[in-house]
């Protein structure tokens, strides 16, 4: 059992839902990332996603695109992120998941990549541009190192949901609505229908993401799933804050509010 399964069973035992948070690694520096991960854990994040900055993040909206550009100005290498995660892991207990684009794994070398993930304490990877059909290329390698490939389903997945859900590992990443990542004012998806369909095929924990940005969203949506994923709203706090201290404080405040809303 890797840390993701442990976390979800612990939450279930306590009748709680998962708060999954995201920051882009190296935005604004890897030192800030280290402190942010620690702070988010303290304020109640259950699983933390680290985005590996990429030149062409096609699934991201403007907020995370800008974070990628800020991080790449440094310039930041995947090896540096791995080293930082290794340090983070000595202080942080929550599951850590990478969000990255397939080309980064492909160039790093899948074998080396997953072996390093495992050594540094990464529990899963989310690869937005690797649909179910293409993951055979790395699936066995990821399994070998016990790193879960977290798969996504979206409201347009329809008849694809069965295959994806049955084969999901760690948790199933459920995309809230059409479009790229980023804050939304409303959701047009029929979540009752979406989740009851998914439930026909799997017992795996389901986390809902894309556009969830406020405590109100969290309260409204928590009943549908086992966890909620908040990304752009956190990155937005990084973007608008000046200086390390303010970044940590503002992100910490948001995560605390989200935690409160989720448990309330």
């Amino acid at each position, binding site marked *: 059992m890797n840390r993701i399964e442990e976390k979800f069973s612990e939450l279930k035992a306590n009748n709680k839902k998962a708060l999954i948070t995201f920051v882009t690694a190296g935005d604004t520096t890897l030192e800030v990332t280290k402190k942010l991960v620690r702070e988010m854990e303290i304020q109640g994040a259950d699983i933390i996603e680290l985005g590996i900055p*990429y030149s062409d993040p*096609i699934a991201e909206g403007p907020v995370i695109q800008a974070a990628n550009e800020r991080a790449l100005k440094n310039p930041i290498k*995947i090896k540096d992120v791995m080293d930082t995660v290794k340090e983070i892991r000595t202080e942080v207990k929550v599951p850590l998941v990478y969000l990255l684009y397939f080309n980064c794994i*492909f*160039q790093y070398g899948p074998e080396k990549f997953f072996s390093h993930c495992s050594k540094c304490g990464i529990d899963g990877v989310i690869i937005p*541009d690797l*649909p179910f*059909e293409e993951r055979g290329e790395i699936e066995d390698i990821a399994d070998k190192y016990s790193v879960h490939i977290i798969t996504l389903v979206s409201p347009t997945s329809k008849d694809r949901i069965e295959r994806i859900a049955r084969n999901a590992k760690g948790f199933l990443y459920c995309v809230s609505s*059409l479009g*790229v990542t980023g804050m939304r004012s409303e959701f047009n998806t029929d979540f009752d229908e979406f989740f009851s369909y998914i439930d026909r095929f799997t017992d795996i924990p389901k986390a809902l993401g894309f556009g969830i940005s406020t405590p109100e969203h969290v309260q409204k949506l928590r009943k549908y799933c086992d966890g909620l994923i908040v990304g752009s709203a956190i990155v937005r706090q990084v973007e608008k804050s000046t200086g390390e201290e303010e970044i940590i404080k503002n992100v910490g405040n948001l995560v605390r509010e989200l935690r409160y809303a989720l448990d309330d």
Partner: protein
Amino acid sequence: MSIQRKGRFGEFGGQYVPETLMNALIELEEAYNKYKDDDDFKKELEFYFKEYAGRPSLLYFAERMTKDLGGAKIYLKREDLNHTGSHKINNVLGQALLAKRMGKKRVIAETGAGQHGVATATAAALFDLECDVFMGKEDMERQALNVFRMRLLGAEVHPVTSGTATLKDATSEAMREWVSRVNDTFYVLGSVVGPHPYPAMVRDFQSIIGNEVKDQIMDKEGRYPDYLIACVGGGSNAMGLFYPFLHDTEVKMVGTEAAGEGIDTEKHAASITKGSIGVLHGMKSYFLQDKDGQITPVYSISAGLDYPGIGPEHAHFYESERAQYVPVTDNEAVEAFKYLTRVEGIIPAIESSHAVAYAMKIAPQLPKNKIIVINLSGRGDKDVYSVARYMGVDINE
């Protein structure tokens, strides 16, 4: 559980896209497979090719150029004479008719030089479709005339400022837009790139070029040519010319890549000559990238070749040695642009000038009984400003 991997050319191609797009690609593939052999669809497409785009395009014997270079006979496939001024209209008419069959009311497109954007806006006007075009902000400045043409045609042109603000980023932005409105929107991709089924579908629509050349050269010479030469960015005009000759192995195929200021500088867009295998925009192919997989900025005088990758079937042609890919610099392309204009009275697109330049290199070394066909993929009116700038001539009043 293993699933048959679709849309592969050797190891290249595939469907590396967000889950939200997968069913849309599957629907597109089904619709394409249904209509590509449908008589009504084929008839309608033929009608628009002939009556609207002006096909077949001419295969012109460039007699003065041939004599001047003193070697192989040179023919020009005049895609520049098509309506809207380039080969792009072939693919766009095909995709727009498909969009209509699929009941889509809105088309989106990416564009670099603006030729594909203009072609898409044209088809949208003709078939009464809503049209949004994504174009890098830098390209909008380089190709202001095409931006205005698109707007006149009723399209909305969205400047893309992310990344390098060129074709690569316009493509990413068009894909993001498609993810947002996948239900009512048809993405008209402009080259033999992107996720399956685009590389195969665009190739098929562009194959009219090579199929016509086969008939035309048989009429004129009674045999197939020895060389086919075409420029490659994503590679749609080259694939359209090459593909029908795939099994005619005596016909050599040469794709010319943009070498910009030279392949030993950082300012080029030669994906095969200088790139490595990677994944971007839904496909596995050759890309210019660093060791971490970050796509590196590219450069070419030609906005249409200014792309850090190449279509997956070209990557396969390269690996299997069916075709050869050679770099041509800005300087060589500009010289060819001026040369063809002076010798034949034909102003070629700066993209196509890359192909002309390579023909100028090899023709003199070949015997007179050899035949070269150059794909003149577009006309050069749009490039007059940038060539003048390159030559240091100020043509602004």
